[in-house]
């Protein structure tokens, strides 16, 4: 136990350094990149506040966006007609200056007022957000009606019936939840947070920095030889190291994740944590009867389990590669694999692809069930069990190897 506590104490400093450094960096960059993507925040707030609640608000945003687009189209069509009628074969004519000035003023505005292109971007963004909040109920109702129709038509496939039953129950709860939330939310930060957390590489960098040398440094320096002579032994030392490595990864990821979430909550003006998760863009048809806060907790556990699996894999590779430089190269492979797999177009079962790349959006934005033995099982549960099993196997393999290294190091 003393050895364990000693090792734990030694691991605190690097964990704190990596966690604080990467978390500060991630929070700053996430907020800065969100801000730069939104453009003029004041213009957005003014447009958003000017709209009514409910469907009228969505319709007004869409109407404004389409009206501006029609105005732009009108002037551009006029210019296009001029080009078509005055062109000399393939040589385009020079547009009159009045027409150019008119295009400029309409599209880009002047130094004091925003042009239609900026307003269009803002209203487009608002209508995209409000679409989920306005039509999620209708979309879910349509889908449940489709399920009931299929059942009435006599679908006999047992799995289809089971999934229909499960979904009807879930959707009923979702509808109940949505009934209680008539408030309008600014979901820009929430949407971007989900997008950011599903593809961010910073947590993988943290795992690499903390664990790539967990065994290779000891093996290269020859300290490992000394461990087998101690009371704890090589296997005991390795098991402590694996437990501490997993703890380091868990602490790092938890602090990192919740710091990002806190930054998002503080940046959003509305209380987004209590809104139904179906209000997020692209999640209108999700069957999960939870609010955004609950959804964040769900993805936290999914990402945490994936992180722990990667930590175990990195420690195993650190043990296998024996030396620091090779382990630095080899340990990058499991960390880069999810990103590489998500970009390569390979023919894989969709659920399997989502699990291998930790695609939290794909696993949660729709029905999200896998057919196992004729029963629909929540994809997140399958994912959780699979990654924990891989993590345990990797840790066990590292332990078995450590027994051998203990003798031949």
């Amino acid at each position, binding site marked *: 136990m003393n050895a364990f506590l000693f090792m734990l104490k030694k691991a605190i400093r690097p964990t704190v350094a990596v966690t604080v450094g990467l978390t500060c960096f991630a929070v700053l960059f996430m907020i*800065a990149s969100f801000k*730069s993507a939104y453009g003029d925040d004041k213009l957005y707030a003014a447009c958003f506040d000017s709209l009514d609640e409910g469907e009228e608000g969505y319709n007004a945003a869409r109407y404004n966006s389409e009206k501006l687009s029609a105005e732009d189209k009108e002037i551009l069509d006029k210019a296009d007609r001029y080009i078509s009628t005055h062109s000399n074969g393939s040589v385009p004519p020079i547009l009159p200056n009045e027409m150019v000035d008119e295009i400029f003023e309409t599209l880009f505005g002047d130094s004091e007022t925003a042009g239609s292109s900026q307003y269009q971007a803002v209203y487009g963004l608002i209508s995209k957000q409000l679409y989920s909040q306005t039509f999620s109920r209708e979309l879910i109702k349509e889908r449940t009606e489709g399920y009931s129709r299929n059942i009435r038509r006599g679908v006999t496939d047992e799995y289809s019936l089971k999934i229909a039953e499960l979904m009807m129950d879930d959707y009923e709860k979702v509808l109940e939840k949505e009934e209680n939330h008539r408030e309008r939310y600014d979901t820009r930060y929430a949407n971007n947070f989900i997008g950011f957390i599903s593809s961010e590489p910073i947590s993988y960098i943290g795992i690499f920095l903390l664990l790539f040398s967990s065994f290779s440094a000891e093996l290269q320096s020859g300290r490992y030889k000394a461990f087998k002579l101690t009371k704890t032994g090589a296997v005991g030392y390795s098991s402590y190291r694996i437990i501490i490595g997993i703890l380091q990864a868990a602490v790092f990821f938890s602090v990192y994740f919740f710091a990002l979430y806190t930054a998002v909550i503080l940046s959003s003006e509305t209380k987004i944590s209590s809104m139904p998760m179906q209000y997020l863009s692209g999640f209108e048809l999700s069957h999960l009867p939870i609010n955004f806060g609950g959804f964040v907790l769900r993805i936290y556990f999914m990402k945490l389990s994936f992180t722990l699996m990667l930590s175990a894999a990195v420690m195993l590779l650190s043990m296998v590669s024996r030396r620091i430089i090779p382990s630095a190269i080899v340990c990058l492979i499991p960390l880069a694999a999810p990103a590489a797999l998500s970009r390569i177009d390979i023919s894989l079962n969709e659920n399997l692809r989502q699990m291998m790349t930790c695609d939290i959006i794909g696993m949660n934005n729709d029905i999200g069930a896998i057919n196992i033995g004729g029963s629909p099982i929540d994809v997140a549960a399958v994912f959780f069990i699979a990654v924990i099993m891989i993590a345990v196997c990797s840790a066990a393999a590292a332990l078995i190897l450590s027994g051998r290294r203990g003798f031949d190091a």
Partner: protein
Amino acid sequence: MLELQVKQLFKYHIVLIAVIIAIIALSRVVGITLMKNDRFSQYMSPDTAVEFDKLLDSTSDMTLEECAEYIERKQTEAIMNGEDKAVTEAITRYNTELQRCFAVRGYRNYSRYGKGIVSLNIPSDLKAAPEKYRSYAVPRVVNSDAFSRYIFLSSFSIMPIIVMLITAVLSADGLEKGVFKQTNISAEAKAFYRAKEIMTVVFICIIYIADQLSVMLLSGVFERPEYRTSSVQGIVGFGTSAFRGTISQVIMWVFIRGLLSMLLCYNIFELIAKALSSLKKYIIVCTSLTALLSVSAAYMPALSPYMFCGITKISDVLYDLDYVKSLDASEGLIVIISMCSLLGGLFVWRRENNIT
């Protein structure tokens, strides 16, 4: 002494050379595979490319108006003779590229004479920064596929990681083991360090040149002599670029920026290795630096041109360079100047402090 260093490199670090070659080869294979499997490929088919090149040859010494007249005649002939798909595709592509050239000439004329816009795509800063467009050269129609392939393949270059690996093996490992302490007491120490420095810098340059040459050869930019005279504004996506030069000059700029970046990386990594004297800490610090700079460039592309030690997408670096009014030049000039001053400063400082 230099000969000895080179011999040692090939004798003791042959695995390092093999690993580097394998990494470069792998990155090229991945790049080519992804390029071939791209569903939304904009590249011309080989037959269309042949026909397109014929059109380019026929119009090489014509003005834009003459080109327009020629292509119109060709279009009519193709319809009347019922030419095959490759010919019609080549004519359509040529016409599209030609319209872009007219549009760019329009921006130039508008900024110079206050009139001349011929297309609906008007840059938003045309009135605010007319200086940017004033000195544009009139672009010519070119086959831009090779340049697009060059940009795509360049995005798979992981040279900062390779430089980190080279410095780890040639310096950080030895510093941790205290090998250089023995050298310090030798009378030949100065010559040894000088030779080691020259050998490492030359080795990095050779690896970088090999990496870039492989990209250039595979993309086919060497087979396009017209790139030496055609303005970059004739390429899709570069119509309003702040760069004012030929396509070859842009490729050269990318090459020089990359080379200076690698030498900067080497200097910074060498300093880190010396300061820490621990291979593990060296890898942690250098990986953090490279990773954080790469992530910054990925999330905020506007910062890409300045992320010298990060893995950046060349397309982001090129597209995000802005126009600098006071210099009447593209930001690219500032990038190169800042890199040269940083690099010079680092070399001088390391030399004065006998850092190696």
